């Protein structure tokens, strides 16, 4: 991606409808995130990276792919920032370069038998081109 950090942050703000500067780093979002320690960076830290212009770091992180869209972060944010939408905007930037993170062709038959359709559709929509 040949865009400056500033352009990328602006694009993330447009796609997510959120203002990065609104976050005052209280940490409520990260405290409530059910993915907890597995999510790196957790929501507040992810937003901090954007505030510092370290966009590439966030785009290359695993954290943006670990969000389960549970919306606890946004529900509890005292500043009305919805991190789930910011994470989705970051993922979209990557997915739109035609790079999937979950490949529907790689689902194993045992899972097809077992896992509810709802989970496949949701996962492919969030993580695949």
């Amino acid at each position, binding site marked *: 991606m040949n865009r400056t950090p500033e352009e990328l942050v602006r694009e993330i703000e447009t*796609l997510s409808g959120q203002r990065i500067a609104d976050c005052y780093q209280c940490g409520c979002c990260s405290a409530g995130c059910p993915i907890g320690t597995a999510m790196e960076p957790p929501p507040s830290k992810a937003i901090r990276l954007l505030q510092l212009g370290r966009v590439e770091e966030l785009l290359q992180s695993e954290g943006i792919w670990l969000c389960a869209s549970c919306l606890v972060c946004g529900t509890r944010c005292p500043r009305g920032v919805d991190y789930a939408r910011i994470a989705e905007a970051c993922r979209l930037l990557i997915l739109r370069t035609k790079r999937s993170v979950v490949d529907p062709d790689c689902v194993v038959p045992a899972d097809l038998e077992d896992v*509810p359709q709802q989970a496949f559709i949701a996962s492919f929509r969030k993580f695949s081109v």
Partner: protein
Amino acid sequence: MRYLYYPGCTLYSKAKNLDRCARRAAERVGITLEELPSWNCCGAIFNTGSDDIAGQVGPVRVLAKASQLGDRLVTLCAACYNVLKRAGARLNIPGNELERQRVLEFVEEKMERDVRVVHYLEVLKEDIGWEGVRRRVSKPLNGLKVACYYGCLMVRPKEVLSFDDPENPMVMDELVAELGGEPVRFDFKAECCGGYLVVNRREVAQECSMRVVENARSWGAELIVTTCPLCQYNLEMAQKSVGARRNLPVLPVLYFTQLLGLALGLPEEELGFEDNKLNPVDFLKEKGLL
């Protein structure tokens, strides 16, 4: 009373028991669920990208189809409920007229009127009323201690879902009490089960689910009820793998419609327990409920 009903993909396959018990229980309380003709998948999860119009096509087509037949659409799957409601709200955001027009043009269906998406639980509470439900209970639950698990999709985002308190929802607890059960206090009732992460990060989802189950157990629950096929799957599978490895006792996970059907006296063969991955039949027999 007749209601337009949207089952969604999962209720036609992996969650047949959720759907079937709901239809039979509805008959018992005087409701007919009329399936929306030629429905399509709602998309299972809401897309939030501000320019993501393709993601709105599925749910909007469902709403448009429904609008041609009525002004309310009943859902049962928590994901369908969440996605359809949010898609409807997004379509009506002031300033979003261009997107509205483009999506509707794409689906080639007319939106005849606004459609209110309601959950089956809301119909029970608001239209039948708890008194109306209680009157039809023929097999009270004998004080069974139940943890009502709502998960994320029923209650968030609160501005749009307006279903119940986003941190401490109560409607399923109220229903269980009317059926003669004892809803337990349960701090993780709206915590995430890990959701669709089970597809590619199974271990993360299982940890989330085990936390929910263990919290329910620590408050004395003997059983968990859900209204989401994915929550149900995750809570059951986590127990079958992680729970079994840690030698934890099993907490059965039922759809609330199965518990409702049981209390309304539906015969055992209509309750679909054979499709539950942790078969609750022995437990329910022990409790004198089967």
